[in-house]
């Protein structure tokens, strides 16, 4: 009994700690990113609490956290991308519409007949303020916060006591002028100061310890009408309507677009752009073919080399085995980007050691980066270097799991080494390795790092298309989405992402089928 109570208390404490974080997380994401996300997390938090408190729902304890993780990390991002694909979210359309309107409404200008004042700020011990304003003609005014507007002061009004050479009193209602050093400390107060002066308002526009404080009569440049969803420039009277994520005016030649824009739904435009643009469509199949060749080739080469080293390390006659094994793992242990950039330097056509050797031996230089075929060979080679240690490690394990008596039996039956490899080692290995090979294929299918670091997908196919000869599907779409005329274009990128999904989806399905078949064969 006491044990269960203790367990219950621990459980509730842990659940309480979890709830603190979960509530915080839900509030933060809900208020800053998306209310749906916040609500989703809140719902899962409640469900998790219920599940952990109820003994009847015991089995669900393992499933619900997984479902929550899936919602947060998989379902929500996919849904979000699908929504974004129908918008023009990206550079030039970053702020929310309310933010754009708020920014425009905060934009003030000085009408031609409005006044500019120089301001002296007075403060008392209670940190209250008084403002003495002098306009361009030397007329003085006083503003007391809490009282509306400004009150004119006669130049020789004795009520304000002693004045300095500019006619500014040395003290005001017992308040003293703000010192130079304190001026900037009051910046927030001055920034928030709004004095009514219909039809305008007086705002502090510049504070300078050297030049003093400047205030201007300003009026909003823009007015927004929610009924018609239009912004009007008060100064010029031009009306801007909301259209595809921008406020615009005029048609055709005289069409004028107001920056900044906001994300807007633009229907299937992003998808149509992918389908209609010949420069996007034409290189597609070449890129796709190379993607498959690259992924399959990488698996084949890494497995070939890895297995060869594994058999070598597995043989009884090899001396210094631990040493060789450590050496051969190095490419796997060094960060990939480092390896790729190093190989890029080693293969430099004029100064790389590889080509210097080739030049000395064969008197020829090979330009590994400019020729469409050579760059592919070089990339496959570098990826083989990067990937073989992994294949070697898993092959070593698999080799040791093959029973030795099978080889004994084969030797007795008169099979030579090659036959043993072909009919015992390889089939036994493949059963164990097949799921990993499929995973490796899927990984290389999206191996952006190697492609991008080695030659940025280059050499270019032509000046007109962004595709390079060594681009795979993923690097190609990256280039399409982020090097367009608008800079970053998240909406377009999301649309391409959805197309990619329809290509990669069937391949993944096929991969899973294959894995299952191998697993059934092994069982």
């Amino acid at each position, binding site marked *: 009994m006491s044990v269960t109570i203790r367990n219950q208390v621990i459980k509730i404490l842990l659940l309480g700690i979890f709830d603190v974080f979960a509530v915080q997380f839900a509030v933060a994401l809900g208020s800053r990113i998306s209310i749906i996300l916040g609500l989703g997390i809140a719902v899962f938090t409640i469900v998790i609490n219920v599940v952990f408190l109820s003994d009847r729902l015991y089995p669900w304890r393992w499933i619900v956290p997984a479902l929550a993780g899936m919602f947060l990390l998989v379902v929500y991002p996919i849904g979000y991308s699908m929504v974004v694909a129908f918008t023009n979210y990206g550079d030039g359309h970053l702020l929310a519409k309310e933010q754009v309107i708020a920014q425009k409404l905060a934009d003030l200008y000085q009408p031609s007949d409005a006044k500019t004042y120089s301001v002296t700020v007075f403060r008392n011990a209670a940190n209250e303020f008084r403002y003495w304003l002098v306009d361009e003609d030397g007329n003085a005014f006083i503003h007391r916060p809490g009282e509306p507007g400004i009150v004119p002061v006669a130049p020789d009004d004795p009520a304000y006591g002693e004045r300095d050479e500019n006619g500014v009193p040395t003290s005001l209602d017992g308040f003293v002028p703000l010192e130079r050093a304190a001026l900037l400390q009051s910046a927030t107060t001055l920034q928030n100061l709004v004095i009514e002066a219909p039809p305008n308002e007086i705002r502090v526009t510049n504070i300078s310890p050297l030049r003093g404080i400047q205030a201007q009569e300003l009026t909003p440049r823009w007015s927004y009408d929610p009924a018609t969803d239009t912004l009007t420039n008060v100064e010029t009277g031009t009306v801007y309507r909301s259209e595809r994520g921008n406020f615009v005016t005029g048609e055709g030649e005289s069409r004028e677009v107001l920056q900044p*824009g906001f994300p807007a739904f633009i229907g299937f435009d992003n998808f149509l752009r992918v389908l209609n643009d010949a420069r996007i469509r034409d290189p597609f199949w070449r890129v796709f073919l190379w993607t498959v060749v690259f992924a399959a080739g990488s698996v084949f080469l890494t497995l070939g080399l890895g297995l060869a080293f594994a058999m070598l390390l597995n043989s009884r006659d090899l001396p210094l085995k631990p040493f060789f094994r450590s050496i051969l793992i190095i490419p796997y242990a060094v960060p990939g980007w480092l390896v790729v950039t190093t190989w890029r330097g080693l293969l430099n056509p004029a100064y790389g050691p590889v080509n210097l050797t080739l030049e000395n031996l064969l008197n020829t230089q090979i*330009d590994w980066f*400019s020729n469409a075929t050579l760059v592919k060979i070089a990339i496959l080679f570098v990826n083989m270097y990067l990937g073989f240690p992994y294949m070697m490690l898993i092959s070593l394990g698999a080799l040791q799991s093959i029973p030795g008596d099978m080889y004994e039996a084969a030797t007795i039956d008169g099979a030579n080494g090659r036959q043993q490899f072909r009919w015992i080692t390889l089939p036994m290995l493949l059963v164990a390795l097949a799921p990993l090979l499929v995973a490796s294929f899927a990984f290389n299918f999206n191996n952006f790092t190697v492609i991008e670091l080695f030659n940025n997908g280059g050499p270019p196919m032509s*000046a*007109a298309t962004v595709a390079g000869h060594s681009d795979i599907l993923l690097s190609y779409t990256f280039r399409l989405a982020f*090097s367009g*005329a608008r800079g970053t274009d998240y909406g377009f990128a999301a649309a391409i992402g959805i197309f990619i999904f329809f290509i990669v989806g069937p391949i993944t399905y096929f991969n899973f089928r294959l894995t299952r078949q191998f697993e059934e064969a092994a069982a």
Partner: protein
Amino acid sequence: MNKSSRLVLVLALLALLAVTSMAQVVLAQEATAEATEAPTPVPTPTFAPSVEGTLTIWADEERTPAIEAAGAAFTEEYGIPVQIQQMGFGDIRNNLVLGGPAGNGPDILIGAHDWLGQLYAGGLLAPIELPEDLAAKFNPLALQAFTYEGQLYGLPYALEAIAIFYNTDLVETVPDTWDETIELAQQLVADGKAERGIAIPVGAGGDPYHHYPLFTGFGSYVFGRDEEGSYNPEDVGLDNEGGIAAMNELDRLVKAGVLTSATDYGAAQTLFQDGKLAMWITGPWAIGTLEESGVPFAVAPIPTMEDTPRPFMGAQGFMVNSFSKNLLLAQAFLTEFVATDEVMQLIYEANPRPPAWLPLAEQIDDPNIQAFTEVTTHADPMPAIPQMAAVWDAWGRAILLVYQQDSNTTPEEAIKQAAEAIREQIASSSGS
């Protein structure tokens, strides 16, 4: 366990939940109250410094120490805390784009003028008011570079443009004309004095930035300019006669083995440091490393081709986040404090580049910086309009095709295709 004890436990949990959520609500309210409420009255007769605002500045690694020193002096003088956050130069822009609208941006950031187009279109920058007497102390080209749609969005501190670094052991002076320079480069290689005569950096992206003087030297341009000097994205001049001539000249030099894609930036730098490269076209960022390497060098403008080549001019400066809560303070910090001899000197010493602050530029006696300052006076400000993103990419591919001696495309076809692609992309994106 019986029913009542379970009920007690559930109730306990609910109470726990309620307490924690209430605590959080209270905490959150306190935090916002602190941020928005006016400061509590100070009961003492003296004016204790009541902190109403703090300045946050995002700066890159090279500028951080200088700005930290300046910030400390500012804090001492005015009692305003200045907080400096260091991040990579490019990250400053990306983080502002992501964090600015959500209210996580700084008050002031360090940046390059060619970010203006993107940041302006994103509504992320607040204009800066510069009094006329102060404006007169800045290099007008730098101010022009930071002016967008008629308003100033940055307070510049440095400018940069590219020129020729030459090894003074190998080259006495750089000749006046491009053709003579190429002959000299070939002569040096033929005599075995240098492994390479001249190098322009070529990366995997083609590096159009470093090739731009070649295009302007033959009379080409990226975007035409209107009467006010603003770039017009509808007038792309890369494939005009001058552009074709520049591509053919590049083709000639690649065929003659004078230029090669093997000299990417890193390779060229190593060769120059080892005294194997006689002339290298690049910018003032290379000065530091070259001085450390001890190789004797000097800087000269790129020699005349058909016209005087004009490199791109870049300006670096301080910008103000439009979502800053201290706009007046940020403005005052920049115009009253940064735009002074002392702070400009600090920034210069931390990372010497041609200064945008004229009183400082006049004092500098470093011949290399002087040479680069001279170069910036006949340079084109790098277009800051967002359409530049489309240009870099296609243009770089055209240059790469020449370096690769692609058999399917002549240099003329390459630049025409590139310009066509740029025009189409600009046209297709102008509406959205």
